[in-house]
């Protein structure tokens, strides 16, 4: 089922699967390897081999496999990943916008599915929280194949049609995540930013590594319309008649300010902020980002987001 989902695109997966998703900070896992863990948990059930990488605990080295193949393999076990990745996917009505190939939600869902795939592929636990003004779906992180199926299934069933309350939802989700891990927020961030920043602060305080994938349609950035437009609030009833050419530049400036502000705050707090436009190649953008993470260009710890004074 997972393989036939529109959100799992082979061309994207092919670009990112080898890069993997690495935590930049200490995460609470049970094994050492890809992700540094403060815990020394015990293995329960063998799951798979993976190739040895420098820094792996030599105790995990399977000498038998080495004897057979003359290669170094590390044994991996179920429920023992160091990385617990939680994807917070915005499924509010604002994500429904999109006049071209994909809506923002579809783009975000593809992104979420791809990241979940990567996580599962590297045997990391991945969870999903689909939300609008409430959490509509909450899947606790797990590293099983079935978890991927559940995630994709939840994404496919989601209907972005309600208002958003990102900040409040993030606070509640934060409370539900018991151990430190990676939190990926996929949203257009067209919400109450103060509440959002407050929630980010809570995630920071809880020790999570947060990645913000902001998805916007190019229309929303460029306002390219040549005709008069009756803008209807996608999450409300308000309507506004306007001739976009008369204030396009000002609007673009306003949007730029908005994106810059988010970017600066995230930068200040050491949070990754990736702006993705729905008309951009998702695989390329994602692989570029993951590649940068591998090189350690990201994840510099910064100040508390609440202390930012732009």
């Amino acid at each position: 089922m997972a393989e036939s989902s529109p959100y799992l695109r082979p061309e994207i997966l092919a670009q990112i699967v080898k890069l993997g998703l690495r935590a930049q900070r200490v995460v609470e896992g049970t094994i050492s390897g890809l992700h540094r863990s403060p815990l020394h948990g015990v293995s329960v059930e063998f799951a798979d081999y993976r190739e040895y990488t420098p820094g792996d605990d030599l105790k995990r080295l399977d000498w038998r496999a080495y004897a057979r193949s003359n290669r170094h393999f590390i044994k991996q076990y179920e429920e023992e990943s160091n990385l617990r990745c939680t994807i917070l996917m915005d499924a509010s009505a604002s994500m429904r916008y999109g006049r071209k190939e994909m809506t923002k939600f579809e783009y975000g869902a593809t992104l979420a599915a791809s990241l979940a795939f990567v996580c599962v592929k590297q045997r990391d636990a991945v969870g999903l929280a689909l939300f609008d003004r409430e959490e509509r779906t909450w899947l606790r992180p797990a590293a099983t194949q079935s978890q991927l199926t559940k995630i994709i299934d939840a994404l496919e069933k989601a209907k972005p049609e309600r208002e958003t309350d990102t900040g409040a939802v993030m606070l509640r989700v934060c409370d539900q995540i018991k151990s430190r891990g990676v939190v990926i927020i996929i949203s257009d961030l067209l919400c109450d930013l103060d509440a959002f920043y407050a929630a980010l602060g809570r995630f920071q305080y809880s020790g999570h590594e947060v990645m913000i994938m902001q998805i916007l349609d190019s229309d929303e950035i460029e306002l390219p319309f040549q005709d008069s437009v009756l803008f209807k609030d996608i999450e409300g009833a308000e309507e506004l008649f306007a001739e976009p050419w008369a204030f396009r530049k000002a609007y673009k400036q306003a949007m730029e300010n908005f994106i810059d502000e988010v970017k600066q705050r995230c930068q200040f707090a050491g949070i990754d902020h990736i702006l993705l436009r729905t008309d951009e190649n998702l695989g390329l953008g994602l692989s570029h980002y993951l590649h940068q993470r591998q090189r350690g260009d990201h994840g510099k710890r910064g100040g508390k987001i609440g202390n930012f004074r732009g």
Partner: protein
Amino acid sequence: MRETRITGKMPVSQQSIRMGFLNAYLLGGLALASVPIIIHILNRRRFMRLDWAPMKYLKLTIKQNRRRLRIEQLILLAMRVLVVMLIILAVSRPILSPSAMGSWLGGHGRTSRIIIIDDSVSMGYRNEGRSAFERARDAANQLITAIGTQDSVTVITSSAADAPLVKEANLEDPKKVTSAVSALGVSDTTSDWPSTFRAVDQVLASTTFPQKEIVVITDLRKSGWGPAVTETGNRWAGQNVGLKIVDVGIRETANLAMPAFELEDTVALPGPVNLKAQIRNNTRSTVTGAQALLTIGTETRPVLLPDLAPNQTTDVPITINPNKPGQIPLRLGMNNDAMPGDDGRWLCLTVRPTIEVSMVDGEPSAQPFESETDFLGLSFSVGTEPWHLKRNTDVEWNGSRLGPTDVTVLANVASLTPERVAELERQVSEGMGLIIFCGDLMDLGSYNQRLFRNGEGLLPAKLDGVNEAAVTGIVVEAAQQSPIEPLSKLAPAALARIRLSKFMGVTVPGNVKEARVLARWNNSEASPAVIEKRFGRGRVILVTVTADKAWSDWPVDPTYVLAMRSAAMAIAKGASQQDNILAGQPIQVTLDEGASAMEQQVKLPSGESATAELIKPADKSPQVIRFTRTRNAGAYEVSWKDAKGQAQSRLVCVSPDKAESDLTAIPEGELQGMLGALHPPIVHYSGEASLAQRGKEIWRTLAMGLLCLALGETVFAVWVGRER
């Protein structure tokens, strides 16, 4: 494009600019000005509906730009509406007229308005099928329609300025007044603006409102204007009376006119009567083969006219043969040209049964040829002319009232009373002829004082005294229309044999233009022998010798008979001036002394009858029947009943004034100068469009404005449409 010339200064209070349109019907297209608005509204209906997520930032942007956007949109919309309006206005050919009737008649408080319509002969001049008078009626009706109900209006024609057509009317129903104006026709009168203005003065005095406005609608011919209007103009300016002039005339002067039709003989008697008509060709082509029609009573006969070159005048002799005394109405008319009013004239021909000669003998005698007037009477008694002689001694003559007579002869009359002199002056000025013979009995001082009066009186020359130098012969001067002209046709030898022992020395004053010497004695001083003076319509002849043989042997010479008969015939009172008058002049029939009239009526040329006025002077002067409504040419028959109840009648013919045939226009500068301080604006109206629309067309200005606006709109639209 037609640009109306407006001249003259206007009071500042009247300089409000009014706009009119030549193609006013196109103004309906102004509705098209709503097209940009409709397009704007339709554009607002043609929009894309979009569910939008970043509403917060959209609203923020719009809020910051809303005011600017709205103003820009409104300016752009206004420019587009204005562009359409300017297009429509330009094709509607607007006219700005600071002196259009609308502004003339604009509200400056309640005003008494007087409209004077020139209905003189020249107003009948037709051009392109319309006469100036028809245009004047149009203009008057437009003015009347434009005048508000708050004002009063008086309409006057120049031919009857003292009898307004409409007086002080409030125009709640202008149609009543306009229909009265429309019924007006051009008259045969001449314009006389000084007297018209004097009559308007009286109307002004009786008007209600303090504000007074006069509009004169005329063809601005020079005839009729004179310096006498200056005083009125200055006075009106001082009284703040506004005057405006609407010129409805054209500057064309081509005209074939008949300036005169008159009796060539001095007196018409039964038998052949010589008439003379004068034809003036003021056209640019030679008149050939034309003919006129002569109407004698009820009979009509053609009169061939000679070929007449441009700007030439010719006399046309006409002879008729009345066989009995009485009044005969004659009309000579040509085919109508551009101005029919002066194409014909009327003549009331009074055929006299006799010529009345009253001789006053200052030295009567019972012996044959001893009286002063015996030889004179003998001279009139021979021949076929029906002379009717009446002899009086100077004593009898001084003691009675002067009756009507054609010629009076004073022969050696000692002196005249002042009353008698006054009576003589009146009769001579009315046409009677007077012959004065000198003599020993004359009181020279009295004559010089009462009759000469320093050249103002009847006497042609001052009497200096009796000159006793003997002289032989008389020399006739070459003078035109000389009463003794037949003498000049005689052989000089016939005149050289006259011998005289005395003659009256006289001094002919050089400053009296009316006096001239007709013959001189053949002496070294060339002393005047016969002197003539015109006095009013009559003529006076002074002969410096006696009428009898006392001073000369001339009375026994045949040349004396010839001289006296021709002189008396020449100066005899011709047709009564009362019988032939000009249109506009009053008909006055003077009754015989002591006679009275009742039921006096006038039958007009149109066939209507009207009551005439009977004037009874306070003194013993004869009563006069007077009738003033003579605005049209033709034969007027005055009838009345005398004291015995017997019907009496008199024919009076009315003709147009020849002055109206002169179509020279008065230069506006000259007219403005004549009107003194008034400086009236002059509007030229040809009847093509509404009078209120006279002014300067401004479509070029609008087109320039349109171009600029269209350019500005384009630039502004690009500026507004740029990405911001």
